[in-house]
């Protein structure tokens, strides 16, 4: 095996020349991204850098204009969202994505029932799903929500909803988790809880996350890709990236860079 092949086999997700244009405006410009097996990989960048667009391309919520997306060496460029979900790529959403008028248990069970093959059986009783309850409760336990099992999700606090979302995602035993700003809109206490949770559930999986909160990124991520104006600006581990003057400039604007220059 050549060095290149060895590297390729460790790549869970890869993009080649990924580009998205909206009527002449290039939101994502020739992005080559490589996410390694077992890593927590962050996608960061200032507002309007194209993070969310990249994310939507990867999750197939948007079709790319050009370029390829590979999952474990196979092209998924032309697959649909629900199809990549079945391959083991599960995404989360910026705003908590739960099924509000279902109980926490039912939320998790809806994910579990997918592999049962009875999801179109409208003539069967709901009771045929009861054997999944034990597994669903175990998953709720894993994210500290066991006591919420019979509570309607709409009545749960925000941080708990996000935890429930994680439990639902775990139910599908994803190989690759794509998280869209998991700590968005949270208080400090909830942020800590979610960071711990992500750390815990990422064992044995690969995670790619879009994140604004740099302290979260520094605590969690093995590798960071910085986007600016739709293109990759820098890549590396946190220390590396955070010292990069280009990144500092993109984040703080030219003022900070000048200040830096004055100090030097």
């Amino acid at each position, binding site marked *: 095996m050549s060095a290149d092949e060895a590297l390729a086999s460790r790549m869970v997700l890869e993009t080649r020349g990924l580009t998205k244009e909206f009527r002449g405006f290039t939101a994502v410009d020739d992005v080559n991204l490589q996410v390694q097996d077992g890593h927590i990989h962050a996608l960061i960048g200032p507002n309007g850098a194209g993070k969310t667009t990249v994310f939507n391309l990867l*999750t197939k919520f948007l079709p790319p204009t050009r370029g390829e997306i590979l999952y474990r060496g196979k092209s998924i460029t032309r697959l649909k969202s629900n199809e990549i979900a079945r391959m083991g790529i599960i995404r989360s959403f910026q705003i908590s994505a*739960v*099924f509000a008028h279902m109980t926490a248990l039912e939320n998790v069970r809806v994910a579990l029932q*997918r592999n049962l093959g009875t*999801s179109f059986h409208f003539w069967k009783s709901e009771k045929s799903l009861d054997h999944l309850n034990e597994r669903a409760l175990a998953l709720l336990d894993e994210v500290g929500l066991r*006591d919420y099992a*019979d509570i309607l999700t709409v009545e749960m606090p925000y941080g708990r909803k996000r935890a429930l979302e994680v439990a639902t995602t775990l139910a599908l035993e994803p190989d690759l988790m794509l998280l869209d700003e998991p700590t968005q809109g949270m208080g400090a206490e909830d942020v800590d809880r979610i960071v711990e949770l992500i750390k815990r559930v990422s064992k044995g999986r690969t995670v790619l996350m879009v994140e604004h909160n740099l302290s979260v990124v520094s605590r969690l991520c093995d590798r960071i890709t910085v986007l600016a104006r739709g293109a990759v600006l820098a890549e590396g581990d946190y220390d590396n990236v955070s010292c990069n003057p280009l990144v500092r400039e993109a984040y703080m604007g030219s003022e900070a860079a000048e200040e830096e220059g004055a100090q030097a």
Partner: protein
Amino acid sequence: MSDAQTLARPSAVMERQKRAIMRRNLFYVALVVVGLVAPFVAYPVFLMKVLCFALFACAFNLLLGYAGLLSFGHAAFLATGGYITGYLLASYPGLTPEIGIMAGTLVATALGALFGILAIRRQGIYFAMVTLALAQLVYFVFVQAPFTGGEDGLHGVPRGELLGFISLSNNLAMYYFVFAVFLFGFALIQRTVHSPYGQVLKAIRENEPRAVSLGYNTDMYKLVAFVISAALAGLAGSTKTVVFQLASLTDAHWHMSGEVILMTLLGGVGTLLGPIMGAGIVVSLQHVLSQSPLGNWVSVILGIIFVICVLSFRSGIVGEIARMYNKNFK
């Protein structure tokens, strides 16, 4: 919360659920008894009309209340069921009514699949508009087609003999047949809502992108709901034609698509009993008002009721009652 409490909870919840299910079953038994004795208290033909529209509204509610899809073309299925059944029974005297009704339902189901495939990719108001446009198309087909009798409609459809030996010309026999059809339709909806499929449907209604990201092909699930709904609307139309021995353009007109929305919202969208209540109220009002001096004002009065309903009790009559019940007795 201590461990003991945590462990005690699931069983307590199960106990509560069991009691709720028992109460619900008792309630259903009571309703069936009411349905069985009703023709001795009220005029059977009136009751049959209520039951047909109740089934129609229940079918519509499955789509709006449980799949979150607002169809503005359900009249097409009601009318298709009615016309096909009417035409077959009137032209082939050897056919028994149940065969005629099944044929009508089948054609309505097929039409539902066609509508569904064309409309399901659109969301919200666009979905409603596509269904309306398709239903208008069907309306004009019925105006022009030679077998429907055009503006006059089909008259004198024979009720015939059920299974070849039970004469339905007796209103009481007819009533119990309609009641059985209604119960079948209602049971099917009740089961669909509380099935593995119903769970996914609910998830799609609550958050479609999330359901997609869990790996569900949501368009297919919505299509199935649309087809079941169209089939039951067709069944309602077919049965209605046998009861009244006629099929007319009234059933195909977009007014009818609007009326079923009114019935469902008035009774309570997303509740199993709401559409029945709504259909009962609307049909009764039409019946009473058409015989009173206010006869010409039926549409206006229904419109006012609709406005009041949407403005002040959005969850409908049954929805409001359920809320008050939950507040005071739980």
